[in-house]
């Protein structure tokens, strides 16, 4: 079994703890002296860097949430001057503003390192052809996999998302051996391949690294059967670094977290207390090597549990279960984050409608679909088909531009949308994973 960085990935846990202690101390100093937001929060809690000596002191530190990034949009939480930032990425925020993250040259090197570990744990080497069908751009998926692929010396095909016909053709012509995309797209591809007339035997696919959205063991089996590959789960979030925070090994029994860079905790999302090993709770990360945007106790809102038991692969890094739930209302549609409150704030900006709406999420032919039903109120009801139609189109355009997702907007009669106890049910998710 190939391991990219034995020194760290198989480190004795006592030694690892010393590494973490030292890196945590450095990070706390870095944020205390360079990020006013963190300095204030620590001072409010009566803390200085001298109070944090080891990871046992982690629970003394304040949490960071997505809203803190939003309130300090765009670069307020960066710990270095912008001249040191060589890359920015962005993902969806809870309302209109995206969540912005930044990387120094060193951070990019760290990111490439953890991605190299991710790809290696899936068995990828310099002899592989990696087809990266994650989106390239502000989203961290495409470029994250890209730098990891180059780091291990593989041949990277930066095809990005979409254009399924071309994906299949190049997969065949170039002989791709590793596939990187969302799990639902992998299923979609598997059926497109069957319909394309290209024989699966003529494809060289061997393994896939899939993430950016939740997926079950059932889906994994289906992908493995249909594509005849091994399907490896990878996990990350742009605030922590992007993909590369954790990944499964060939045992497919939990995702190893790169603890020498990101310290995980599991908390009770309501009481905020830290929970013992094995308890299901909200995953929290503290970055201990990032320079550009170090984060202290960042609440991911993902629900999972940790296991420190040594893995058969030889890695000593703690494992987390597949994430299957969230402790907030965020949706993931085709790998893209969506908060219902974003939709609401976009509708509120339009004076022609009232935000009486419902979002319906479904999965058709393995692809997530999104429909928005908007009630037509009397004062906005125009007796002209073309005007109603252009209103409908305008709502659709505004949403698609803001969310980066294609969405179908349907006008409906008032009171169609269920209200229970005066509160409208804004989201219906019909997907069953």
């Amino acid at each position, binding site marked *: 079994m190939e391991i990219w960085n034995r020194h760290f990935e198989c480190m004795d846990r006592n030694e690892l703890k010393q590494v973490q202690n030292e890196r945590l101390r450095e990070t706390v100093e870095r944020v205390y002296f360079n990020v006013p937001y963190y300095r204030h929060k620590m001072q409010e809690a009566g803390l200085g860097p001298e109070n944090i000596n080891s990871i046992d002191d982690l629970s003394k530190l304040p949490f960071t949430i997505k809203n803190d990034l939003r309130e300090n949009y765009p670069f307020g939480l960066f710990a270095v001057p912008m001249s040191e930032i060589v890359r920015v990425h962005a993902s969806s925020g809870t309302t209109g503003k995206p969540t912005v993250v930044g990387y120094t040259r060193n951070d990019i090197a760290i990111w490439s390192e953890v991605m190299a570990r991710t790809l290696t744990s899936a068995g990828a080497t310099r002899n592989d052809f990696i087809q990266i069908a994650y989106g390239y751009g502000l989203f961290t998926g495409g470029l994250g996999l890209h730098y990891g692929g180059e780091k291990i010396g593989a041949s990277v095909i930066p095809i990005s998302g979409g254009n399924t016909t071309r994906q299949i053709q190049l997969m065949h012509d170039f002989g791709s051996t590793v596939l990187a995309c969302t799990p639902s797209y992998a299923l979609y591809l598997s059926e497109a391949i069957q319909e394309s007339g290209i024989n699966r035997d003529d494809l060289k696919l061997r393994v896939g690294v899939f993430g950016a959205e939740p997926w079950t063991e059932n889906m994994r089996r289906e992908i493995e059967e249909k594509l005849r590959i091994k399907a490896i789960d990878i996990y990350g979030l742009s605030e922590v670094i992007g993909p590369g925070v954790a990944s499964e090994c060939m045992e497919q029994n939990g995702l190893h977290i790169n603890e020498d860079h990101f310290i995980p905790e599991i908390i009770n999302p309501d009481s905020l207390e830290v929970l013992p090993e094995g308890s299901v709770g909200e995953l929290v990360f503290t970055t201990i090597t990032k320079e550009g945007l170090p984060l202290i106790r960042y609440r991911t809102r993902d629900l999972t549990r940790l296991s420190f038991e040594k893995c058969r692969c030889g890695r000593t890094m703690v494992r987390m279960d597949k994430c299957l739930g969230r402790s907030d209302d965020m949706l993931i549609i085709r790998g893209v984050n969506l908060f219902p409150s974003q939709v609401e704030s976009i509708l509120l900006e339009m004076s022609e409608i009232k935000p009486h709406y419902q979002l319906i999420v479904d999965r058709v032919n393995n692809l997530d679909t999104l429909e928005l039903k908007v009630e037509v109120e*009397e004062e906005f009801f125009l007796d*002209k*088909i073309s005007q109603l*139609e252009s209103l409908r189109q305008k709502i659709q355009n505004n949403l698609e531009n803001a969310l980066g997702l294609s969405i179908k907007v*349907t006008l409906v*009669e008032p009171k169609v949308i269920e209200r229970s106890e005066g509160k409208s049910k804004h989201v219906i998710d019909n997907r069953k994973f």
Partner: protein
Amino acid sequence: MIIHQLSVFLENKSGRLTEVLEVLGKENIRITALSVADTSEFGILRLIVSDPEKAKGLLKEQSFTVNLTEVISVIVPDEAKHYAKILRILSDLDISVEYTYAFSSGKKSVIILRCSNPDDAIKALKEHELELMKASDLYKI
């Protein structure tokens, strides 16, 4: 001369039109004329009824989105050339007709028109000695 036509927003779901008609039927509202403009997504039901204000209230109670739209009504012999004449008069004066529908009663046709400018339309048609119906007469049919 201004007729108040009922306009009702309908989702493209089966049973919606039936429900509107049942609501009106219960209170014995009579329907003089009816048309449906539709897209694949939704439709607008347009009705000339015996009591438009009452009908509007009834439908609103049932949570329908309703409005009253101003239209005009012309009565002519039921030959196509007369219909064409009306439209020619209006188009010559650049009065745009958003939509129109018609029905026959005996040897006469009643033409309903939604114009961008109803007052100008009424004036133009009167000048050509065309007979415009009063609302009260139309609702009685």
